[in-house]
């Protein structure tokens, strides 16, 4: 029996624990040394003076060099954008990704000790909840007020949209001749069993219902959602899969974000699904936004503002294009595939109220039995 070996193994493991633990607990030092999350890992584009600054250890306050720390819930394709920012300005950006609500919880818990300068979300309601929690800072920026339309930023100027995405009706080009043109129309009995929807757990769905409440009131919104549920929809927790389901005949119509179609068309220009712009005779299609805000306790508020301003101006194109979204700045042209989706009216006024109506939306979804 190798009991002696076992003993030695255990002993060295325990000893190793102490050693490694000591090293590992140097949180940021070790990570900064590998330098990979820091965008500065790419050479040639960095200002040498900025590089040295990133090796500072756990201390996050008093950041003299200007590294900007970002908590972002919108993580798809974000890295090249930050890289471009650093290339343009020489300022480092380090970021951590996560789910919007969890990042919000973290900011709330961190309070005054937060290392985060900027928080970015993938949806309006979440940034509004963050504002309600008091963790955002109001900024005074002519650039931002100049480029971002009023409806796409908060009244207190504590958050700003960077891109828009429309959640629209999509339908099969092969099987559907008369798709519905309103969200209510999705609940028409003719679509019984042929409807795909995203589950209620996702903020996209919640914001959509919130927009219904804003438009028509809670009672009517409940009716509409009920009619959807009565159509026995197939709940799929992924817009990509929803598109694929429509393409493959699992359902004929669905509600999904436009930008996924951009990705799909890039791979397959003949993808047999089309966008149907809803509510065009009325308020316009439901819009949700990717947002950014300066945190209330940002260690580096100047850098934070600089980043957001850049994203709203020089970075707008890249930011939106990376994900086939519509730029928040109406003067910036979207990606050509996106342009190909067509012109449409957007329900912009609702955007600011999505957050306030989200809890009610969740209740409506519960009450109607929406999965």
């Amino acid at each position: 029996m190798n009991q002696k070996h076992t003993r030695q193994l255990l002993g060295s493991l325990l000893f190793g624990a102490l050693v490694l633990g000591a090293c590992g607990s140097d949180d940021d030092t070790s990570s900064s040394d590998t330098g990979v999350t820091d965008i500065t890992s790419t050479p040639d584009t960095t200002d040498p003076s900025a590089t040295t600054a990133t090796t500072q250890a756990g201390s996050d306050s008093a950041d003299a060099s200007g590294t900007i720390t970002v908590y972002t819930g919108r993580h798809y394709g974000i890295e090249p954008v930050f890289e471009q920012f650093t290339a343009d300005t020489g300022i480092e950006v380090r970021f951590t990704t996560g789910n919007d609500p969890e990042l919000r919880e973290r900011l709330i818990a961190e309070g005054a000790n937060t290392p985060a300068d900027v928080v970015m979300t993938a949806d309006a309601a979440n940034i509004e909840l963050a504002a309600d929690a008091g963790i955002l800072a109001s900024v005074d920026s002519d650039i931002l007020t100049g480029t971002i339309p009023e409806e796409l930023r908060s009244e207190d100027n504590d958050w700003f949209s960077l891109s828009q995405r429309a959640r629209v009706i999509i339908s099969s080009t092969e099987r559907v001749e008369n798709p519905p043109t309103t969200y209510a129309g999705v609940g028409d009995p003719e679509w019984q069993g042929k409807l795909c929807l995203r589950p209620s757990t996702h903020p996209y769905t919640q914001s959509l219902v919130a927009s219904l409440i804003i438009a028509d009131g809670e009672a009517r919104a409940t009716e509409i959602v009920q009619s959807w549920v009565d159509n026995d929809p197939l709940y799929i927790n992924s817009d990509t899969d929803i598109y694929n389901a429509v393409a493959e005949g699992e359902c004929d119509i669905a509600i999904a974000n436009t930008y996924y179609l951009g990705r799909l068309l890039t791979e397959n220009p003949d993808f047999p699904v089309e966008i149907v712009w809803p509510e065009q005779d009325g308020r316009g299609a439901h819009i949700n936004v990717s947002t950014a805000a300066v945190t209330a306790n940002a260690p580096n508020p100047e850098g934070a503002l600089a980043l957001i301003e850049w994203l709203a101006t020089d970075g707008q194109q890249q930011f939106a294009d990376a994900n086939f979204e519509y730029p928040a700045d109406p003067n910036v042209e979207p990606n050509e595939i996106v342009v190909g989706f067509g012109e449409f009216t957007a329900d912009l006024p609702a955007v600011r109220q999505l957050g306030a109506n989200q809890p009610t939306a969740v209740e409506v979804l519960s009450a109607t039995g929406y999965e």
Partner: protein
Amino acid sequence: MTSTITDAADLVPHHPTGSTDPIGADAARPSTMSVIGQRSRSWVSTVLVSAVAVVVSIPVLVIVWSIVQPSTDVWQGLWATRLPGMIRDTATLLIAVLVGTLVLGTSLAWLVTAYQFPGRRVLGWLLVTPLAIPGYVLGFVWLDTLQEPFGARSVRSIWLCALVLTITLYPYVYLFARAAFREQSQRSIDVARSLGCSRTKAFWRVALPMARPSLAGGVALVGMEVLTDVGTVRLFNVSTIADGVLRVWFGSGNRNAAAELAVLLIGVAIVLIAAERLARGRARFTQSGSRTGLHVQRLSGTRATTASAIGWGVFTLAVALPIYRLVTWAIEARRTDQTATVAGDLGFHLMSSLRVAGIATLACLALGLLLVAGSNRRRVGGTVLARLATLGYAVPGPVVAIGVLVTLAAVDRLGWLPDGWLLVGSFIGLIYALVVRFLAVAYQGIESSVGKVSPSVVASARTLGAGRFRVATQVELPIAGAGIIAASVLVAIDTLKELPITLILRPFGTETLPIWVWQATSESLWVQAAVPSLAIVAVGMVLVAALLWALEHGAETVS
């Protein structure tokens, strides 16, 4: 997206490396006289154990505390809408998976223990390997694979979810059952046969009932996993109570109600553990009489082939096919140059994962040893403090993460640390959260391994002049060594696969393999998820191999 073992509050169920010993069973355990087993006479150890227990249980208590002010209107709302459905779904899923793992795990264990057929030994090992595959990986592989032939609607069902969970979790029951069958004396079977039972009947009437305590332990473990799973169920549109906790928390922003749901979950877990204790009864686990082991029956011809086929079939379904699918995706990812993320390449993520899992495992091991050594296992209630430290196992990952977040942030606000050093977002904070979650695994594994050291061996050592320290290090630890290693391996597997806590609490520069998987799967990019998934499975396989080695070298899986 937890795919990890979960446990009840202060009642920790059987774990593959040992038994749970909820309050009350201590009396049945023989007394030991060592450091690790002995009642601690010094107040120092009591203080240490208390300190560890309190520090580790605070995050969960923080969550539980909110139940002091129940929010009745939210509960009414929940009850009118989702709660009945959640309870129904949870119950359905739980029962389906418990039955499934029981049947699958037990029958496979019997197959490889009582019969001899070609490839039995290798199969015996391979059937443990599903442990290496996270549930959320298996989930999306099966979802995507079956979507084409069966359609998106039928694939998103609670039954397929139950099947996926069964396949991922049966190894726990399998390990327990296999150990129990191995320990059984052939004599009992012989007696049964002399009384007229055929071999099959002997299985049902003798072998199975005698293995009941161990099986109960394995099943309870599976139950904990199912109760706290949030990743796999979401894939299949199943809304369990754990999922409900997250919905209420992040959807409605109602932290109180979410915490109350979490407490409900802990309550269900406690019921589960109590049921397991009842099933165990007052049976003693070790056989008296010679351990001749089961007489293995040689199979030949079609029966041998059938036996092989069954075993290999399960392995293919659970492990081989998913790996194959992942490999094809990985090759495609290679081709389209998607084998790295924003943070870095495979090597970077692998190192992050190894670092996190390694340190967390060592921390759990050290604290587990401390708790076991410092607790008075002879007295009823002597282990209450240590049990407190195992609360985290009964709570879903995201909830633990939030509890830790709140706790650490409060400590940060106190400003005790030198200027600029923060616990939130630090490596230590992450390790702390993982310890809160998984200490239970280490604790019960160590406790039962040490408990197996014969009291007369320990008494002999003491009369030979060995003080407590020498007895602990030169007698108890070596004998219990393999079992302790097995417990550590299981903690390592858990921390390797862990996602929600790492997601919320990781420091900059630590991007583990599961994080990579999440980044891909949250956008339904299965191809991109393949490479990190395979890496997780590969490391997991190494750990499973270590576990099997420890088991072969004397770690017993039952107590």
